[in-house]
């Protein structure tokens, strides 16, 4: 217990020193404030950005809302289609043989690679982002659901069969629950990928959203806004990830019981 308090204390001190050093370097001009704005300045910018539309035509809240909406929509569609597809591929052999090569063809293409094509199809609005994010989350969701089902213990299935379970019952009462942790891993990878490709898509072509905000701020040379945007992207990414982990803990435990 004592060692633990010591290390916590060190952590806090380290963080404070880091921020103080940053503030110091920037305030004294050792590192130009044009390259590294001081934390106090960033805080001011953050407050300012909450209510002010300059320089990119949207408040911080609006950008966050847009980005979250796009990311979550694409993510849910990706999960809603990817997980059943993965389960079907793992359970029905013919289905697997038919879709496998196609899936293998799409799988290695990084989601960011789809951005230009989607923009050509859907323009720079919300649809193009949602479809890129859909691909980003659909692929890991499928892969993980697939391997989750494939890793079902034979013994468990034999037991179910011995007790007269139908094929469908084995799938729903044995295979899918035992694949739940893998499916959640897939969801975690998918969410991460969604957020990354959202930022990329918004950087490349967009009219709103956090990626757009930092890109515009760069073009007009507002490095403080870029910094705030990047930090906000990080924070919201972390919030979404921990929400998912929380759900996982709740859900998977319930499934095992």
């Amino acid at each position, binding site marked *: 217990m004592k*060692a633990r308090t010591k*290390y*916590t204390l*060190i*952590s*806090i001190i*380290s*963080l404070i020193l*880091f921020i103080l050093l940053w503030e110091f370097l920037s305030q004294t001009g050792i590192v130009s404030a044009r*390259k590294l704005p001081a934390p106090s300045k960033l805080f001011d910018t953050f407050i300012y950005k909450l209510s002010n539309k300059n320089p990119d035509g949207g408040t911080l809240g609006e950008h966050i809302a847009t980005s979250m909406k796009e990311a979550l929509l694409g993510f849910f569609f990706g999960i809603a289609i990817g997980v059943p597809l993965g389960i079907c591929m793992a359970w029905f052999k*013919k289905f697997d*043989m*038919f*879709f*496998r*090569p*196609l899936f293998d*063809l*799409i*799988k*290695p*293409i*990084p*989601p*960011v*690679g*789809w*951005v*230009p*094509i989607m*923009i*050509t*199809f859907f323009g720079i609005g919300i649809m193009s982002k949602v479809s890129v994010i859909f691909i980003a989350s659909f692929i890991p969701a499928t892969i993980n659901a697939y391997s989750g089902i494939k890793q079902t213990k034979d013994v468990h299935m034999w037991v179910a069969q011995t007790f007269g379970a139908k094929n469908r019952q084995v799938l729903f009462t044995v295979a899918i629950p035992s694949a739940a942790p893998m499916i959640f891993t897939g969801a975690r990878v998918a969410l991460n990928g969604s*957020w*990354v*490709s959202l*930022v*990329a898509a918004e*950087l*490349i072509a967009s009219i709103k959203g956090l*990626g757009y905000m*930092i*890109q515009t*701020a*760069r073009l007009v*040379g507002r*490095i403080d806004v*870029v*910094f705030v*945007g*990047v*930090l906000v*992207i*990080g*924070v919201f*990414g*972390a919030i979404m*990830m921990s929400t998912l982990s929380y759900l996982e803990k709740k859900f998977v435990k319930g499934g095992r019981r």
Partner: protein
Amino acid sequence: MTMPKLSMTKDSRETLLYGILGIIAFLFVWQLACMYTNFGKIFPTPLVSIRAFFLAFVQPIGRYTLLSHIAISLRRVLVGYALSSVAGVIIGLLMGYSKMAYAIIYPIFCIIRPIPGIAWIPLAILWIGIGESTIYFIIFMGGFSQMVMNTMDGAQNLDTELVGVAKVLGAQENQIFSKIVLPSTIPYIFTGLQTSLSTSWMAVLAAEMITAREGAGWLILAGMQTGRIENNVIGMISIGAVGLVLASLLRNLERRLCRWSVRSR
């Protein structure tokens, strides 16, 4: 590993049949969509795309041919990836092994960790300008935190019994590190290498789309901007192929180096 059999079993013949059926169905739908819907107004037919793909090997797109574009992207990825892997392993080991280092570095690392590599692009451009080192930096940031997290995980999930035994038998601190900590971390490092390779590959695409005048990412974006979607398709296919080759090379290496490990699949 068993040797592949020359004579095909019924199973593998069936797999092949259905696989080919799937691909043909896909191409067929693509062709039909091009012929009868608006899709065809912007999107090339499969034949046109395949022709363009082979042409791109000899005819330059922009300033380079397809192979040179890919080589350029590949070089960028490998430089950034190598740097982030080395740095990530060092910091990860440090944090995983020493509680003190963990207490000092981890809170600061937590600020950086959730930021996707791609989000660093605008900052990198403002800091370094437009050029190769910017792209290296972006790729570095793309893979770095995953490397750190995985390596740290490995070093923290150490079998404490092994360390205890070594201590009892009189091993020095540095011996424990090199004989126990390092080897048992390697499977985790490989997991990190795998994930960070795919994010690096993604980061180079995004970076090239935004700041470069050459490379596979540029190829894709230029295809969109000049309305030549076939270039776009070519770029995606080649990126996918190269990514696949890199990933399987790495998996082979892992299988060879960590034959003893339970985690290596």
